């Protein structure tokens, strides 16, 4: 006989206990440490910090450990933690011109002030599994640059001198909007759009960027510059009356330069797409820059014809914590609604059979 399902609470407790055990895995394998994650899985940590909107490598690493390597789950943990943190205010705008450069490349010039710095990159590695890495591994020490780097001004600044690229809007005194503190409404300004993209899912932005390259809202981008390195974060303390440095964050910045034939609103010129992400993540920064430029279609007088240009479509579906929650909520019981649909489908099949005597339908629920 059917007995109403009881004991959900105990089942949940037991499931969580099993989860804890599975997370640890075989006990004879040493437990992974937070330091191992922050040092050796740095790019995963960077992604969790970027999409979790919280620059804290240790929290990100702990979240990755707790999430058993599921980065979206780790991003979710980081976000839920972040939302409980007190807010003191906004930092001063970062000065990426003063970045301590670890990598800096431009695709638009062969050489330029500050030079092309390859840095630690997968580019040009042959993607062959390195079986030596399976064991203990002592890589050769990197070469050191004893001279130091010369200043590297932004490439777009060089173009700006010639008036070939659109002027950035003058800095505004109004504080930037914050989509974590107020609901977004459309059309959203570029500050909110960039915030949304910076938190957005790397995979989603990558595919949107790709679609814009393949002709869905075609853009003709050049990588003006990608730079990676640490930047100081300064905060203006009212009590002191001057700005103090809080620390440094590692950032990836991408400035796309897009060909633009002009419109009724704007003369022919190069236009900008901007990407800025915590940690080292060129894929995300480049995708963000491409999507940012695509989303500027309307303000530049272009027709909005493709998904990547449609801000309501892009901004409302970019957040992977929201997306995964709603997709996965289908796991929750829906039997009450399903029952209502069962009743309707059965009724409609009866009506169908009555008017189609040549078709015999098996009567369900009998």
């Amino acid at each position, binding site marked *: *006989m*059917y007995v*109403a*399902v*009881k*004991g*959900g*609470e105990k*089942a*949940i407790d037991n499931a969580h206990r099993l989860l804890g055990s599975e997370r640890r895995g075989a006990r004879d394998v040493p437990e992974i440490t*937070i330091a191992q994650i922050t040092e050796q899985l740095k790019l995963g940590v960077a992604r969790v910090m970027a999409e979790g909107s919280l620059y*804290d490598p*240790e*929290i990100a690493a*702990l979240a990755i450990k707790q999430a058993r390597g599921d980065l979206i789950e780790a991003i*979710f943990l980081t*976000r*839920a933690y*972040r*939302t*409980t943190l007190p807010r003191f205010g906004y930092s001063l705008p970062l000065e990426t011109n003063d970045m301590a450069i670890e990598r800096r490349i431009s695709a638009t010039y062969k050489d330029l002030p500050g030079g092309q710095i390859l840095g630690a990159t997968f580019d040009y590695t042959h993607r062959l599994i390195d079986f030596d890495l399976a064991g203990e591994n002592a890589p050769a020490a990197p070469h050191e640059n004893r001279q130091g780097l010369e200043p590297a001004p932004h490439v777009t600044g060089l173009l700006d001198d010639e008036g070939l690229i659109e002027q950035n809007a003058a800095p505004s005194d109004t504080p930037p909007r914050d989509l*974590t*503190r*107020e*609901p*977004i*409404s*459309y*059309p959203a300004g570029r500050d909110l759009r960039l915030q949304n993209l910076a938190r957005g899912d790397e995979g989603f932005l990558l595919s949107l960027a790709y679609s814009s390259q393949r002709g869905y809202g075609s853009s003709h981008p050049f990588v003006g510059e990608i730079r990676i390195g640490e930047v100081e974060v300064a905060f203006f303390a009212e009590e002191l009356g001057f700005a103090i440095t809080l620390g440094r964050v590692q950032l990836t910045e991408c400035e796309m330069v897009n060909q633009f034939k002009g419109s009724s609103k704007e003369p022919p010129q190069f236009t900008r797409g901007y990407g800025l992400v915590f940690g080292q993540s060129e894929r995300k920064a480049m995708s963000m820059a491409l999507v940012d430029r695509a989303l500027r279609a309307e303000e530049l007088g272009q027709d909005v014809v493709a998904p990547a240009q449609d801000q*309501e479509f892009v901004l*409302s579906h970019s957040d992977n*914590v*929201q997306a*995964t*929650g*709603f*997709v*996965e*909520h289908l796991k*929750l*019981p*829906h*039997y*009450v*609604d399903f*029952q*209502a*649909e*069962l*009743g*309707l489908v059965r009724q*409609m099949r009866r*009506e169908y059979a009555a008017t189609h005597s040549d078709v015999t339908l098996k009567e369900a*629920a*009998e």
Partner: protein
Amino acid sequence: MTLISATLGHAAPYNFAYLDEQTKRMIRRAILKAIAIPGYQVPFASREMPMPYGWGTGGVQVTAAIIGPSDVLKVIDQGSDDTTNAVSIRKFFEKTAGVAVTTSTSAASIIQTRHRIPEETLKSGQVLVYQVPIPEPLRFLEPRETETRKMHALSEYGLMHVKLYEDIARHGHIAKTYAYPTMVGGRYLMDPSPTPKFDNPKMHRSAALQLFGAGREKRIYAVPPHTEVVSLDFDDHPFEVNKFDKPCALCAAEGVYLDEVILDDRGGRMFVCSDTDHCETRRADGHRGELLGSPIEQKEATHVA
């Protein structure tokens, strides 16, 4: 050394009912506005909660904003207090607010629900908090928020009437069995959340306050007590609730919403109350359904005795 070592080993110092007071105040303002404009979707700065979007974050935020130490909380999902997510949300408030919890509909001051309204008529002073996935009743007809907000502003609901009409033209009746569109206070078209349309009449002029929270979509809306909630229909195709052929197999209740339970792989099925509290209360009162002994025989036996 760091934040982690400072945090490790200490229970996080969360506020009563988890949310900080500033956030609660912001949510309460949204709730008050929602009550003042019945059926209107008020945007609010939904927070990232420690449970997934789509799993009741809107309802949880509404409950967290209104709950006080003397409240008695009931949480149901699919009408049942024992479904996993209902258990999880109830535990969340037991842990963060330390409030009394109950499975009894009449004993609860706040009932958070997903997909059902209790069978027992709610009283004045009770609050029913709905978890809402998609608050916009027009969303599946018009995906753009910019458009649907305009349509609400202008009371331009022709699109919904056309959809219902097309259902009738194509299928002979309105093919909408849950999340059936309602008109609130004669002004706003409202999604009753994915409750079966069976429950729609219970919303109409209910003595309880009904609050709706959509966390992912960042909207709150409300039906104040005694407000008109009318399910859309046509004169020649009046609104009808879902019907069941048999009473509950356990408590013999009629005129309640039933779940179909599959008993074996040979087509064996039974129908039982979806509202588990209602069913248990009836059984405690001596009602017996088909599976617990024939109710007729029992009645006769009582009569003879």
